[in-house]
């Protein structure tokens, strides 16, 4: 396991945001974290990304217990996070964005030629067909932007890629594009943590599934141990769904 949590927990004041969650990420595998809004997905990934410190339980990187001191520390250990807002500048070109904050140098200058070439190569290696690395990122589609952010993380030495709801704002076709890049990153040997609330996006690409509900784990399942139907049902919360069905039925009969 590259990255693992054991009974990890976090509270903010009197709010227990996360309780006793255990999960793991293996190299070349995709671990999906599923849960509704407020289930604790963001708290969990912020602990993994070094943004929050956990209060209880243990966090292990390569099997050794660690306390991440910050996002920089996580990055130095090869844990890269691609957030929903992507941290890209719309008016700047793809290659300028790709190297922003880590520009290659040639003497005093920014090695523009290398940057342009490497950005193009890395995108192609991920199977991303960007027509022109000189075009502003603002002209890319949502899926393409996600892909550039993923390629950037891979290039800068990520071993674990944490993707925060990369498909939630996308249409069906664009989501498919991003799922393909997740698979591509996995095939290149990265461990991927894929956060989503959509079991239909998670199931095809995932190897393990962690289900969160109201800050607690509903269990971590290997793909062999769970069907898509079961995953969807767990996600929706069977009891709640049944209650909702009853409620809706009654409403209809009184009309």
């Amino acid at each position: 396991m590259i990255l693992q949590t054991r009974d990890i927990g976090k509270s903010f004041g009197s709010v227990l945001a996360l309780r006793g969650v255990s999960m793991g990420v293996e190299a070349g595998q995709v671990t999906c974290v599923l849960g509704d809004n407020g289930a604790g997905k963001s708290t969990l990934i912020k602990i993994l990304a070094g943004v929050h410190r956990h209060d209880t339980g243990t966090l292990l990187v390569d099997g050794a217990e660690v306390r991440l001191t910050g996002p920089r520390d996580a990055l130095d250990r090869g844990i890269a996070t691609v957030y929903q807002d992507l941290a890209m500048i719309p008016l700047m070109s793809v290659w300028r964005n790709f190297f922003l904050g880590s520009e290659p140098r040639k003497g005093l200058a920014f090695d523009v030629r290398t940057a342009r070439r490497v950005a193009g190569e890395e995108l192609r290696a991920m199977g991303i067909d960007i027509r022109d690395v000189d075009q502003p990122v603002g002209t890319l589609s949502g899926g393409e932007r996600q892909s550039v952010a993923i390629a950037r993380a891979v290039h800068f030495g990520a071993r674990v890629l944490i993707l925060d709801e990369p498909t939630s704002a996308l249409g069906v076709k664009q989501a498919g594009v991003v799922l393909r890049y997740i698979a591509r990153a996995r095939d290149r040997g990265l461990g991927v943590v894929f956060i989503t609330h959509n079991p239909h996006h998670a199931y095809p690409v995932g190897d393990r599934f962690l289900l969160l509900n109201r800050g607690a784990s509903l269990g971590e399942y290997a793909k062999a141990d769970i069907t898509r139907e079961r995953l969807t049902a767990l996600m929706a919360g069977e009891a709640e769904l049944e209650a909702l069905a009853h409620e809706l039925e009654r409403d209809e009969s009184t009309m």
Partner: protein
Amino acid sequence: MTDERLADVGVLRRLLIRPELGAVVGALVVFAFFASQSAVFRSLDGVANWLDPASTLGIMAVAIALLMIGGEFDLSAGVLTGTTGLILVTLATEYGLNVWPAMLVSLVVALAVGLLNGLIVTRTNLPSFIVTLGTFLMLQGLNLGVTKALTGTVQVGGLREAGGYAGAQAVFAGTVEVAGTSFRVAILWWVLVTGAATWVLMRSRAGNWIFAVGGDERAARAVGVPAARTKIALFMTTAFAAWLVGSMMALRYTSVQANIGIGQEFIYIIAAVIGGCLLTGGYGSAIGAAIGAVIFGMADKGIVFLGWDADWFKFFLGAMLLLATLANRLVRRYAEEVRH
């Protein structure tokens, strides 16, 4: 195949998206207009004549352009040219300092003002428009108050008698003979400043950071760009430019009015905007701002050559600004539109 057609669109697209395009077209139109009306305007003497105001304005416009690409304004830059000139002349005449050390002192003061602007803006996150409006008013008051207190008048003069004047005058305010016409040495400085600024923007890491902090400061920070340092450096660059221009003016006229530079701050911003800078930051060009200054120089002198009333200059200024802002708005929308 449609590949060739796509490639053509790509080239056109890249040309259209250059921020200085509007300024280049504007400069050509303005030149063609005045050159067709006035023989003096298109003569070498005429060119030297209208490049003169373009050069000092251009140095400031280029610095302001960098700052605006970084997402900030500096309203104190115009008055600061007066402050630096006043310090130089006062120290050299009232206190008998040599011109060179006097220039060094005024440089230190200018950089301190830039540092202060930058620190307040980055620490408080207040809009730089308000912060530098404050320093603008404070400097304006200081310029007049201190000058009056020291000399009893609103002007200091007599720089010609100061030690080191001849050398400094030759470097910063002299002339260069080209084909029998004397050009102001300020034009060389302007070209130098524009070249350096363009290199920094396009070919240095700092340039990448300037575009980034102006485009989206939060995102820039998230990937490790030192946003505060970048912005403070930009304010200090503007202050440096103000010192350069203030010293040039003082050495050229050997006297400085205490109210000089007031109102210029907007001219710098207008030249930068005509040159393709967006008011919202993150986009623009140093060469564009330099060309924006050329348009000004041509209009400023061209109107005089044609024997028109100088009031028309203001009308022209406003019209250019409106046109440029409209053009920039289109460019931005084009660059930011999301395609699916």
